[in-house]
């Protein structure tokens, strides 16, 4: 570490780190998803909250919002770029295309989750 090189074993750790970080990004919408599904349930049973009509509406709206978020948000890529200028890490075209790839895959995952929201909305509504 002190010699300034990042040894090869570190490479694996770095990959594991990236996986963990990706999970962090995905966790937020998944938690929202479960909250929307779970929190109203007791109210539906106890106080007759119109679960079947209202929860799908909420799910649908949040799902659409999520599509927009995924499409517009850069997932912090810009911040990383700024930071690299500050630290003095040179960014090559290769790095940029890697960032784009990573950004794209995160976006697709968000799209997936957003679709899950909407699919669930329909499922709850019709079933």
């Amino acid at each position: 570490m002190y010699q300034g090189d990042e040894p090869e074993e570190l490479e694996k750790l770095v990959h594991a780190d990236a996986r963990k970080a990706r999970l962090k990004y995905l966790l937020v919408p998944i938690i929202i998803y479960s909250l929307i599904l779970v929190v109203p349930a007791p109210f539906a049973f106890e106080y007759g909250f119109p679960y079947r009509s209202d929860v799908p509406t909420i799910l649908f709206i949040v799902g659409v919002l999520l599509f927009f978020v995924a499409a517009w948000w850069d997932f912090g890529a810009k911040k990383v770029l700024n930071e690299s200028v500050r630290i003095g890490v040179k960014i090559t075209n290769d790095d940029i295309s890697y960032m784009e790839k990573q950004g794209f895959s995160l976006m697709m995952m968000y799209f997936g989750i957003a679709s899950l929201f909407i699919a669930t909305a329909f499922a709850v509504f019709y079933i």
Partner: protein
Amino acid sequence: MEEVKEVESKEFTGNSVMSIKNLSVNFKVAEGTVNALDRVSLDLAYGETIGIVGESGSGKSTFANAMIALLPENAVISGDIVFEGERLPYLSNVGRKEKKRDVKILDAKLRAIRWKEISMIFQGAMNSFNPAYTIGKQLKQVFQIHTDFDLDQINKKMKEVVIKAGLNPSVLASYPHELSGGMKQRAVIALALALNPKMVIADEPTTGLDVVVQAKLISTLKKLRASGDLKSLVIISHDLGVVSQLADRVAVLYAGRLMEIGSVMDIYLNSRNPYTLALLENYPSMRKARERVLGIPGTPPDLLNPPKGCRFAERCKFADSICTQVDPPVVQISPGHFSACHFADKVNVKTAEKKYSATNDILSSHSSGGLPLIKTVDLTKFFGLRSSAAGSIFVQAGKKSVAHAVEKLNIEIKEGEIYAIVGESGSGKTTVGRLLLKSIEPTAGKLFFNIGEDNVLELSNKTLSNEKIREFRSMSQLIMQDPYDSLNPKMSVFDTVAEPIEALKLEKDPSRIEAMVSQSLESAGLSPASNYIFRFPHELSGGERQRVGVARALSVPSVKFLLADEPISMMDISLRAHFLNNILELRQNRKLSIVYITHDMASARYVSDRMLIMYLGMPVEEGETESVITNPLHPYTKALIQAVPEPNPTWKPERTGIIGEIGSIVNVPKGCRFYDRCIFRKDICKDEAPPKREESGHWYLCHFSQSELIVNSPEEMERDVTGIKTPQGSSINVSGR
């Protein structure tokens, strides 16, 4: 200045590229007229380099801008500027109401002269590249506008000038932000050389660069002069050392007047003018060692109301009553050497030395038997791109993304000690400062601070209570960097100085706060404090602003530790002298410990008791200041010392003893950090980290003892001179890795 004009125009008839006669420039401002230049005459011969020196505000830039007719609209000009036998067009028309069409024609004429015939390197030009375009594109534009070359010719020409300026052609593809300061300045020089002009005007071309980079740039400029690529050159600088290296003749300006002009030898070795001698006497040179430098007392006159008689009279040690009444005559000392002074026959190096020697006590070396105030153990700071979730996703696995800003720093700073940290920009000095002030947390290692009575805080401990942190903060302060930028223009002196007191909530009672502010203003040398307390920055001179910065750091009475990060880099000689003496006094009177961060060896030698040399985040040498300076052990220290300019034309900086420019802290060499730039390197240095060695009472970090440090081969030595054949990692490597 009549006499100068006559004699000079005789001397240079027929072969002067530019001849300036009785040039005066007045700026019309709301308060009246600023007399920025007063009847200045000067001839520039073909192939000649003339240096223009003077303190800030002496009119140097105004002079340069006048030479290419680029003065702002509020300027009123009189006198003549003749370029290649033709008067610069606009001067003859001053005062007349011009028709739009005339103005247009004039403008077109002038544009043709600028660039093609005369090109200008503006003060601070390296920061004015358009960040959105590559260097190549910006250079191409010059050719496209001013020549009718086709694309192939342009590309060939571009490569040519870039190589001439000491750069690798690959910089053409890079954006300004990818280049270091030195490389940008070289790109500016390439721009200036692009159209092969007859005359180049360079306004402060090396100001703001590190000493090593500056020394290399000077040797490039010298080479360009020798090869004839630079024909006639006007070089403007407040740094007498830089000018002495390049100029054939030197003109000294003060408050808009020409004080002395002569060959470089005349001016530097045989000056006959009190102002020139004062400048030379106060130059922070390495050779002066620890002789006290007092600066030139007072400040330059207000050019809105220039004083009668000699403009230097108020500050001149030779002044007599005649000086404040009658304009000094221009006296010819020898052919080509003129001095504007009533006593030019009596003033010389010897009499000046006598005048100044009354004050020339040698600073005693401060032996600090004090307790350690600050101690670091393997203090390390890395900045990593991967430290955030976004970073670990977006940064490629194999990418080196950790900046080794500071590594394994072990220092001890004693009470009442001034400790200098020296290195080029990029060596990690500022990060050390931020660590010591606890404005960032270390990645590893320990930092201790003695808050008194042997109560030692471990600042690197993350569980330190807020109360303790506050206690530390009330004992440590930062002196802000540069007096022009650091003060908020909307805050009065009182508000600025009281800020730390209020931030630390040390006092609520306004009258007590006022007393504290007054006291710190006075201990920073601003007395009576009541004169300053309600002023705003624009109502203060540069020196006063600097003192306000110091007062701010002192306003908290419990302060024990001051950090000054590059405090004098923007100051001219008088300001620096004041500031450095102020620091010395403070240490004396208040027993403060001061960490002085700088790239300037001469000032570090002047103030500090011990010094640490850093390179790429690594401490490489440490010891008593005198011992390090007189007997540098590490190759980097040797080079740094060699690069400090001397105000003496006989000084030869061709060999800087160092290769290329500072590398990157992200991609550090595996073995010795200095490997890429060392002229003594051997194979072992590449992979093995060097050990600490002790010699002559202090340590350095290297595989070899002094007798083993031998330059490998002449070619190795050559590389340091050309600046082009730099090794991997430094100046070639700009367009990605």
